[in-house]
């Protein structure tokens, strides 16, 4: 008796799980009714910049009149950097018949595109550094299908210019990157190509996991005059360690976005991920409202990088931030967040 009960329970559980997701579809509002929308937001990893993107995205939609809770239902899932889970998340969205999928970060965007094109769901991506390399856009910027979005390409030349302005005598710039982050590789290529123009030499060091960071940092700091960061998830997560070691050696560390400057980077020609998100949100709104199709919009990049500086860090390093930068700064921080 007990045995067959257990068996029955298991069978039911299994069947229920298979049907589980399907039940969701009946509760979502009908698409294109003019009034309400359902979107799925898939974020690849939990990470300050990506979180900012998402926030900005919702703000951008709200600016266009699509507000969560009023005429918008948002399904949000985070795959915690696991590709297999990302896949299931997107399949889930598709089965719920969402009106649009937002893919945050390259692997999520690619998965969304793969499913979206089969299920006729438009995809808006953000925080994808190189959409062309990821085959999410054509080389001339035009869409490859019902997919468009924004790219968080780093303003490399501006960063180099800024570093030169801040450190007139520096010769070498160090960069730590994760070998499995394809965006890092392409950005480093750009740095190396442009560095000559500013009189710099780039020294890069690759790591595989968080555990490698301390030793890599030690090794790098021996050889360089300053360090700069990319939007590399693993490295950024370990930034406090790098900042600590660099501070002891009095070596300035430059960041790639606001959060990094807040916690101790000297300065950054940064991207405001919230702005990036807002821009993306506006694009998504246009698609949802039917004003434009995703296949008609080229992907967008934030051209203007803004200067962010941290005067406390500058003080600790004995560096004065030049007038031309402080006057045009978007924001100057006077303290170091722990």
């Amino acid at each position, binding site marked *: 008796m007990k*045995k*067959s009960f*257990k*068996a029955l329970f*298991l*069978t039911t559980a*299994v069947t*229920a*799980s*298979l*049907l*589980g*997701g*399907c039940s*969701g579809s009946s509760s979502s509002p009908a698409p294109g009714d003019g009034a309400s929308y359902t979107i799925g937001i898939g974020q690849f990893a939990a990470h300050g910049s990506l979180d900012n993107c998402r926030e900005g995205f919702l703000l951008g939609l709200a600016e266009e009149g699509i507000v969560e809770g009023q005429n918008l239902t948002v399904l949000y*899932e*985070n*795959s*915690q*950097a*696991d*590709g*297999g*889970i990302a*896949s*299931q*998340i997107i*399949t*889930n969205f*598709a*089965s719920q*018949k969402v009106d649009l999928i937002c893919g945050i970060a*390259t*692997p999520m965007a*690619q*998965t969304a*595109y*793969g499913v979206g094109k*089969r*299920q006729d769901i438009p995809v808006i991506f953000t925080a994808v550094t190189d959409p062309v*390399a*990821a*085959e*999410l856009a054509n080389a001339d910027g035009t869409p*490859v299908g019902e997919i468009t979005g924004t790219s968080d390409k780093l303003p490399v030349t501006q960063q180099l210019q800024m570093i030169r302005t801040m450190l007139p005598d520096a010769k070498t710039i160090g960069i730590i990157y994760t*070998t*499995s*982050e*394809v965006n890092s*590789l392409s950005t480093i290529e750009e740095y190396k190509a442009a560095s000559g123009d500013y009189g710099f030499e780039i020294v890069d060091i690759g790591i*595989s996991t968080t555990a490698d960071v301390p030793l890599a940092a030690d090794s790098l700091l021996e050889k360089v005059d300053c360090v700069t960061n990319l939007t590399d998830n693993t490295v950024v997560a370990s930034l406090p360690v790098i900042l600590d070691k660099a501070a002891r050696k009095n070596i300035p560390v430059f960041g790639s976005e606001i959060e990094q400057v807040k916690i101790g980077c000297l300065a950054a020609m940064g991207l405001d991920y919230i702005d990036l998100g807002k821009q993306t949100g506006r694009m998504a709104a246009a698609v949802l409202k039917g004003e434009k199709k995703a296949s008609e919009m080229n992907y967008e990049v934030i051209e203007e990088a803004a200067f962010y500086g941290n005067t406390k860090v500058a003080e600790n390093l004995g560096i004065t931030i030049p007038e031309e930068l402080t006057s045009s700064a978007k924001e100057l921080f006077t303290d170091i967040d722990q």
Partner: protein
Amino acid sequence: MTLLLGVLEEGLIYGVMALGVYITYKILDFPDLSVDSTFPMGAALTASALMSGIHPAATLLLSFGAGALAGCATGFIHVKLKVRDLLSGIIVMTGLYSLNLRFAGGRANVPVFTQDTIFENQFLADHIPQWLSSYTMALILFLIIAVCKVLLDLYLNTRSGYLLRAVGDNESLVTSLAKDKGMVKILGLAIANGFSALAGSIYCQHKGFFEISVGTGTIVIGLASVIIGIQLLCPENGTSFLNSLKLPQVRPTTAVIAGSVVYKACISLAISLGMEANDLKLITSILFLVILVVSTERRKKVKSHA
């Protein structure tokens, strides 16, 4: 329906890899961690091959072959260099990670959206009628895994297959039969990793891109599929609550594939219920535990009746 199809497709893709884990874990009794890197190796090779214009169907064979070679490496390290089973797998898994990046052309992410794959190509576009198009992928997967399963079943009933089954059961007997048990193990590992790489190849073509992180956790998925499948559908004492098929030996391979689908369904359920990705690993282990405990209880009952 989409969800059902999605789960089925995922389950079938990983089912191919589960067939491989079935060979190493159940038949050879060898915990083989190298699948964590042979799965992405299949994906990496396929991505590069497709970019170079190699025919998609050929990439399947190429991946299987490469996986088999990797399996031979694990086997060699274990048999000839006398390294423990678990460690040999770990050594190959670690080394292959770097090689995989090279296979992918030095990149950690290689998209193949613009290439023809076994799921999207001219042949299919010409021959598949419209009403069938959303099921095409599932059908192709079904076909592939059916072929794999049938071939494996046939193989396990050949003389060579018997030897493979014997070496995991009682390796002294294999020596008594005047056969080199080391070579038999290497063969088993080769076949298993061939399947794993094949699964990786299919995965890459299904998703449309290769990403270096797809391999992490493959062995866990494989073990979960094998254990769930075997314990639910063909436990050792043959007292399955799903009434049995006539041929006992067919069931393990089918069971393992079914186990893969069930596992993916459970993950899907967990996501639908709003569980965070962080918790999914915990759920997997709880699932494992429940299945193992339930099966042990059943085994006890059988003994008391006998």
